[in-house]
Structure formats: C-alpha cells, structure tokens
C-alpha cells in the first residue's frame, strides 16, 4: 500500500492517557499527524474507546461546542466535538447520560499557560453501545496494555546491558516517563474485575 497508511485505533485505558504528556509530530510540516506516546510505549494518533457517557455540556459561545466525559473502569476520557464533528455533536446533543458509547477519535492536545499538557479526544464517530461492547473493549484493552507492559519491561531489562536496538517508542517512553508498571498492572486487574462482576 504505497503512500497509504491508516492510523491504528490504539486501545488504552483512561488512566494511561491521563498519565501521558509526550505529544509530538514526526515531521515538521503543518499537516503531519500528531502522536501521543504513552507510558507503556503506545504511539497513538487514533484511539478506540468504549465506556459510559457520564456528562455532556455545551460550552460553545457562538456555536455549539460539546464537552463530554466518558468513564472507563480506570478513569475519565474527555472529548470535545464542535461544528467540524457535526455528526458527533448531534449525537451528543441528543444523548442520554449515563449510557454506553463507543468512540473512534483522534487524540488532541492543548498546553496550558503553566505548561501542563491536556489530552482530549476529538471524535470521528460516536455510537451507542451496550455492556457487551464495553466488556469486549475492556478485555481487549487490558490485553493490549499488558502486552505493551511486557514488551517495555523486557526492553528495560535488556537496556541494562545494552544501549542500542529495541523499539524506539518503548525506549522514548521509558526515558520520558520512567513508568511504574505496578500501577498499570493494578489498573489492568481493576479493569478486568468489572467484566467478571457485570457480564455472563
């Protein structure tokens, strides 16, 4: 597929996104895709999230601009939708809370005056979901996150004896965050608990 690459919708929990503040573009040009690198080494431009819509607010002044909160078992995703996401904005304007939703969207960042990086999601799609969809997503996200932890730990271990090689993303994540993987293991277990407690 020369010249064509579709960004993978990365699976990550809210806590991991919340802990992330390394945002970058790989090329200088204005339209180059923006990525966030998370503590476990996921490089995400697009994400897939499924959770509970807990709050919708129209915060726009001249036109409609919605802010919504989506809860997963580990925390909150914040999403913003305005005139350029008309379908998502329409969905949010009519949506009930709480309700299950699944969102495909792009990670966007904003740096506050005091230098904090705020991450939010700009939806490409928002769809009604159900508990089953949420469970599948939670299980899948737990697995993907665990795979990343294992890979990152293996590389951290290898790095003790060597400096070169390995996955760039993991290397940068380890360097930037010095992540505490115990915390993310707890997050995974916590997320998985919700499945056994609620379905089947």
């Amino acid at each position, binding site marked *: 597929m020369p010249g064509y690459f*579709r*960004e*993978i*919708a*990365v699976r990550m929990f809210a806590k991991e996104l919340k802990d992330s503040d390394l945002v970058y573009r790989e090329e200088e040009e204005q*339209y*180059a895709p*923006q990525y966030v690198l998370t503590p476990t080494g996921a490089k995400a*431009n697009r994400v*897939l999230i499924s959770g509970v819509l807990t709050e919708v607010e129209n915060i*726009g*002044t001249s036109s409609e601009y919605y802010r919504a909160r989506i809860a997963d078992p*580990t*925390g*909150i995703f914040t999403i*913003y939708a*305005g005139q*350029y996401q008309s379908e998502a904005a329409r969905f949010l304007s009519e949506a009930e809370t709480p309700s299950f*939703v*699944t969102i*495909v969207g*792009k990670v*966007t960042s*904003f740096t*506050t*005056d005091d230098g*904090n990086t*705020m991450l*939010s999601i700009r939806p*490409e*799609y928002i*769809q009604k*979901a159900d508990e*089953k*969809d949420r*469970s*599948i*997503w939670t*299980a*899948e996200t*737990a*697995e*993907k996150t*665990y795979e990343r932890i294992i890979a990152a730990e293996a590389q951290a271990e290898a790095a003790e*004896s*060597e*400096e*070169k*090689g390995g996955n760039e993303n993991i290397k940068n994540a380890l360097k930037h965050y010095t992540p505490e993987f*115990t915390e993310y*293991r*707890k997050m*995974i*277990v*916590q997320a*998985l608990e919700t*499945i*056994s407690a609620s*379905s*089947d």
Partner: protein
Amino acid sequence: MIDMNETELADLHESIQLKSSSGDLVSRAASIHKLLAENGADVSFEEIESKLKQMTDTFKVPATEAQRSVTNAFLKKYNISKTKVFAGKGTAETKKISEISAMVGMPDTWVNLTGKVIQIWEKSHESIAQAGLVGDETGIIKFTIWSNSETELLELDKTYDFKNVVVKSWNDKASITLNKASAAVISEAEIAVIKSNETVGNTGEAKDRTNELRTVAELQQGGIWTDLKANVVQIFEQTHETISFAGILGDETGTMRFTVWKTSEIEEMEAGKTYLFKNAITKEWNGMVSVEINRIGKIEETDEKIIAKPSVFEVCGCAVDIQAGSGLIRRCPQCNKVMSKGMCGEHGKVKGKYDLRIKAVFDDGSKAHETIVNCELTQKLLNLTLEDAVMTATETLDPECINDIIKTEFIGKYFNVRGAKTDRYVIAESIERADSVDMNRIFWLKELVSEELEALNQFSSDITGSKRKNESGMGVEMGTEEEAEALSTDFEEFEKMLSAMDSETESDEDFGVEENFEMDESFEIDETKVI
C-alpha cells in the same frame, strides 16, 4: 482478536518448542529448578511443577509464557537479578553458526560458540567497539561488540570461544552481540571456516544443497531455507527489472506470494503448472511471509497435480470506519466499474446499474483491515434487499441514507471477519458480530497480572523484612482469595488516589477549555488533513 491471539501464541509456542529442547512441562520445570538451584534458591521441583501446571492447565497460559512467568516470579521472590541469571552459564547452549542463523525471528537468546574472525569492519558508530564476521564450518555470522561491554577487541584470523553472547534478529538476519556478560577467549582449536562467497544469511548455500521439503503452512516465518512443491496460481505482471517472476503459489495447505529473482537465471514459468522449488528462502515483510528464489535457487517442473487451497484470512476487529463508496453505488453496465457522479471513468455518461456494498475498516488494535463486502453479504447483514435500498434512497432523495444505516449498524461494534486477503483489501466471505468475551481468557490474564503484582509485593515486603508468606502447598483458591484481598485494599487506595487526581485536574481542565475553544479553529484545520 481473541481467537487470533490464541492461535498466534500457539504458533509462537510451537515454533519455539520446535527449536528448544524444553518441550514438555517436566523438562520446563527441570530447567527452572536447575536455574534456581544454580542461583542459590532452594525450591522443590514439585512446587515448580505445580505452579507450571496451574498456569498451563487452570489458566490456559501457553507453556512458554508459563515458564517465563514462573521463572520470573521465583527470581523476584528470591531477589535474584534476572540479568545475572540469564547471563549465567546454565542457560547458554553451545551452538554452531548455522544453528544460530536459523534462530532468526526468535526472542533474544544466549548462546556459546566457537568461531574464527574472518572480517573486521570499519567502526561505524561510537557505541560500537567492533563489528565484523565470524565463521565456522557451518556458516558465517555478524558480530557486534558494544563499547560498554568491557570486552577485549577481537583479532582477525584468530579463533575464539565465545561465551554468553546474545543472538539477535534484525532485518530477517540473526547476529551475535557481546555485552558485559559475554566473554571471548582465544581457542586452542583451529577451525576451518566454510568456503563461500555468499554474504551473511546466505552462508554456505549451494545449488546442490539439500533442504527439507515443506508445505506452505509450514512456512509461516522468514528466514527458512526450504524446498517446496507447489502450483503456480498466478503470475503478476513484470514489476521490476531485477525480478523474473512474481506471483502466488499454493499447495493443499495454503497459498503465499513468491518472487523469482533474475539472479536465479530461471527463464520459464507458467501459471497453472506445478513446480518443485529448490533452495527457496522465506522472507517476512509487514507480517506477510513470501518465498523467494535467488541465485542458488532452482525450479523443476513436475507432473504431479497439486491444487492450491485458498488461504482463509480471519480477523476479529472493531469497525472503525465506513469508507466512501459504501452503500448504494452504481456500476457501468459495460465495464462494471463503479461510477462517480453518474459517469463511468471509461465510458462516460451511462445508465448505471445499482449495486450494494460495504467498504469497512476493521481494526484489531494492531492493524486496520480494509474490507470489501459484496452485495449478497451486504443484503444479508443489513437485512435489506437491493430493491428496497433503491426504493429507500429514491423516497428519501438521498443515496447516502444507506450509508447512514451501515454506519449505525457497524461502527464501534466488534466483528469476526473471514475472507480472502489481497494486497490491500480483505474480500469478506462471512461477517458475524463478536458478541461475547472469553471469560477464561479474562480470568487468566487477571490471575497472571495479579500473580505478578503479588510477586512484586512479596519482593518489596521481603526487603522491608516483614514475614514471607509460606507458599508451599498453596492451593488455587487460597492464592486467589489472598490475592483478591490484598488487591482490593490496593484498589481502594488506588481509587481514592484516582479520584483525588481527578478533582485536582478538574479545575485545570476547566481553565484549559476556554483557551482550547478559542484555539479550536486552527486545531481543526490541522487535524482534518490527517487520515
């Protein structure tokens, strides 16, 4: 996703098992026991075995993962450094270079070998102290000595006994690296290095070498030298001057791409005929394995009838996009191409015939699979006939309305997709909603992570001198309960922490939003171009 992963793990497991001696549970337990004993940890064989059994039987963890996990859990428990252990003599096997070259694609492994330095390359990077080639009677391989390895540099034409070097895979080739734990000692033995003008990875291959005859299904990774009897299903149009033929071949077990390089001097090949491919090598690129015939490869036509079985591609993914050209479309009655704005690209203004299809993207978190769903399957999935679709579109005066239905039905939902894979698209043969989670899998992941957490807790409480839990004879239930208890307290704290963090950032967020909003338009322009 879930099935796929299991298959992948099983494949990986199998491929490792094929290559490592530690096949069954008992020998895995024995190797862990030996490893621990060498490092001063007195753990009974039975305890190790029962832990392994618990992992593989109760939690359905693949055996390699079980071995890894059990090993690491014990190492953590006894506060033994992993780096030290795996650099230890016990784990490095002595191998010939041809065997090491065959380890391409496997996780980094420690080995010992004896080899003669036949080339030393110019220094290319300050972090590399020395690089070059070593050889023995079976092959030649690249070596690298890192600057921080504190190893003495090697001398040309000397034979060394290499201890505890790491086999790494890079670009489909295996190489060895020397690090802090490695040693290179000048060897007494003088060894003959294989005579070959081939480059690394191609070492010692000649036209008359013999390979195992394998099937397509057995060639699922790069770097395998093989013979292969297969039917040429399709030959692509010439794509490059260095390629004689490229296309698809297949046998009863599946199909795969092949490339015959000009260097092979093969001049004839016909689609539909069956050939014996000799000295072929598999290459892996972008997750696809193909087979190549290069300078030392040859083909022989055979009369045997081999019928290629089409490869079935399966994926479980979430529908993340419905692409343009989905829903109700019109095709040119002459060439069947999809029309745009009432025009056929080739035949101009024609009265198109209606068709229904879906171009969906199913994303499994590792790859985005563009999938084409034909009319028949689309009608079934939407429970809507083509005629009804045309009628609905006419009534609403909106041909896009079918697309809206498709989006609502698909986006954000998980599907099991089966079909044939082409270069870019999956041509769907069946699509079903994935409507349940594999509770077993969730359970074992939870147990696995909990166990790792427990091991970490154990590790830290050992350090602080609190009493060590007596683990011997620990049953499944008991362990689970204890873990659950320990974890639930953790969670309470964790949640408190989370909510504290939440409320902390809340005010920041509110503050940030106004700014964000003002900035929004410029942000939008940025993002819309990114696909």
